[in-house]
């Protein structure tokens, strides 16, 4: 049975808005649209007003969702971090004109901001640092009180940023305890809140598979991989977790995978069942991480991305297996270009340790020893070659065989194959092999 359309509920705006809401909630797919004739009494203004009212109600509900607040808060943390770095950089350079000894001594941004904001000028700051004697021999210039006042105000602003940052982190921690305790227990409140912010809400995060969660924040790299066939990303925002970025490179991918699995599982519980999975997730994560920790650094020829440097991933799996095809898609995708070389099998590995051929010598005799000094004035052994005159008699028989030039060069096939001099075919079949040792004679 078709549900009533808006004008069948009268002209009271609230009633119509309620009806629009109720029929949206009761709707069943697919759409069964039954046109109604609009009576003359139905005013489009009523529908306009009722639609506005319903949309406003929905917006109020949407604004009250806690994960929206959480998203804004965690994004605010990121803004504050950027701001704090910017301000401390300026403060350091600026205050160093007055007291370079102080900015050199104090490495912590928070401490520097506090010192400058509370103590102001060099003498007081160095006294607070218990280095009052340094103040007398300082390299810095004396500041006009007005300059000192603005620099103190600037340091106070940085103090404020730090305070706001700390307050936000505390609040995000508290909010995550109520919104997503399981996620927070796996990746920590701030990274958990970032996952929620990136996914656009806890419910969306909860409906995503762990593989998607693993790559949240790595969209650029992921689409570059899909589009251009670069290496796939291993981790997105999860890289910020110490377990991932402190792991050795060959364990980061699996670590991010384990974390993402636990976080995705936790998100489902947080969004829907509200069960407390913290202990379960911890044991699962610990088991996974223990397995990951056993992974050894791949050898150079195993195809791990960075060894040897500059090479793509090579074929994996047992020897003889087809190389892994990363970006082939279903066969229905239509014709593709020639296979990309980084997916294909490699040639034989280059070895730098293998046996070499005997060393080439540049000092050894080049040909048969010449009798006596060569003279350019003496009689020639042959009449000068003329390019115009007749050529010598055509040579019969096969070309002279190639003979090695130096001692031990090639010959017996000793040495690595790529070290051997090319023979025969290298010179082409038509060109006569030059007999060695004739020189320019």
């Amino acid at each position, binding site marked *: 049975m078709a*549900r*009533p*359309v*808006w*004008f069948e509920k009268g002209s009271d705006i609230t009633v119509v808005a309620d*009806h*629009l809401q109720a*029929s*949206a909630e009761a*709707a*069943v*797919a*697919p*759409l*069964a*649209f039954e*046109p*109604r*004739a*609009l009576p003359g009494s*139905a005013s*489009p*203004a009523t*529908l*306009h007003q009722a*639609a*506005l009212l*319903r*949309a*406003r109600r*929905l*917006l109020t509900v*949407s*604004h009250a969702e806690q994960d929206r607040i959480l998203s804004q808060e965690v994004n605010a943390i990121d803004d504050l971090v950027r701001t704090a770095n910017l301000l401390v950089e300026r403060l350091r350079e600026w205050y160093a004109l007055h007291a370079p000894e102080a900015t050199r001594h104090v490495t912590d941004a928070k401490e520097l901001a506090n010192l400058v904001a509370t103590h102001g000028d060099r003498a007081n700051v160095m006294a607070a640092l218990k280095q009052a004697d340094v103040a007398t021999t300082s390299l810095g210039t004396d500041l006009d009180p007005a300059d000192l006042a603005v620099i103190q105000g600037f340091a106070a602003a940085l103090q404020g940023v730090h305070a706001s940052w700390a307050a936000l982190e505390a609040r995000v921690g508290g909010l995550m305890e109520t919104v997503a305790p399981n996620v927070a227990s796996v990746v920590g409140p701030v990274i958990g809140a970032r996952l929620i912010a990136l996914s656009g809400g806890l419910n969306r995060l909860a409906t995503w598979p762990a593989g998607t969660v693993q790559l949240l924040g790595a969209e650029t790299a992921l*689409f570059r991989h*899909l*589009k251009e066939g670069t290496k796939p990303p291993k981790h997105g925002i999860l890289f910020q977790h110490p377990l991932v970025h402190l792991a050795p490179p060959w364990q980061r991918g699996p670590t991010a995978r384990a974390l993402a699995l636990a976080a995705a599982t936790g998100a489902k519980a947080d969004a829907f069942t509200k069960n407390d999975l913290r202990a379960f997730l911890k044991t699962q994560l610990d088991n996974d991480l223990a397995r990951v920790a056993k992974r050894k650094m791949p050898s150079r020829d195993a195809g791990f991305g960075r060894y040897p440097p500059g090479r793509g991933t090579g074929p994996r799996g047992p020897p003889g297996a087809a190389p892994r095809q990363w*970006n082939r*898609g279903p066969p229905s*995708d*239509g014709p593709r270009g020639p296979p990309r070389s980084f997916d294909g099998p490699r040639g034989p590995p280059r070895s730098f340790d293998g046996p070499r051929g005997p060393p080439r010598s540049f000092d050894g005799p080049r040909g048969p020893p010449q009798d006596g000094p060569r003279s350019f004035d003496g009689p020639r052994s042959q009449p000068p070659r003329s390019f115009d005159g007749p050529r010598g008699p055509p040579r019969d028989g096969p070309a002279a065989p190639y003979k090695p030039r130096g001692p031990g060069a090639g010959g017996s096939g000793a040495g690595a194959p790529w070290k051997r001099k090319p023979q025969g075919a290298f010179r082409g079949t038509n060109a006569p092999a030059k007999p060695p040792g004739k020189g320019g004679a």
Partner: protein
Amino acid sequence: MRTIGLTGCYDDKGFLWTENKVPGHAVYGEKLRKAMGREYRNWNPHRSKLAALVRKDPTTPWFGPKDDVLYLGAASGTTVSHVSDIVSGSVFAVEFSPRSVRDLLWNIEPRQNVVPILEDAGAPERYAAYIAQPVNVLVQDIAQRHQVEIFLRNLPFLRPGGLGILVVKARSINVSQPPAAIYDEVARKLTAAGLVIERKVDLHPFELDHMAFVVRKAA
């Protein structure tokens, strides 16, 4: 200010204008100007794909002056406000993002013929109660992977012989496929659904990898 043969669209000094239904009120900071005792709002084809369609093909099938319009993907209501200038019938503006609807509500509040709907355009049954009579024109500008399916699901709202304008963003459907292949697939789906494709307008240079399909539902 001269008409260009499309309802409600005017040209002046190479710019596109619509007659302002709410004189003195600019929706998104666009230029207003008075001419012949009426006020007109500048319609920027770089901001609105519908305006880009008019610019690229000034002979495209278009709205009638009294049409009802179902507009999917209203966003913050910039294009919707121009559609509301053009037609005197209702404009049903569907948008799913609460953030965008917040701006949409402020923008269309003075426009009595716009009906804001905060719903997923992929679930048309949820807003069936808003729409009593079939609409004359169905416009869709949604950058989603399943944008064609969304369009097809909303077809029951379109009257037989009605006009459909579907703006396809190829990169949203598949980044790794050439846009031309995607457009072919879209055309195949539209034809299979019984629609007649009257125009295919590439929106370059106003939009990259966007194609506007102007279709007609069988009468």
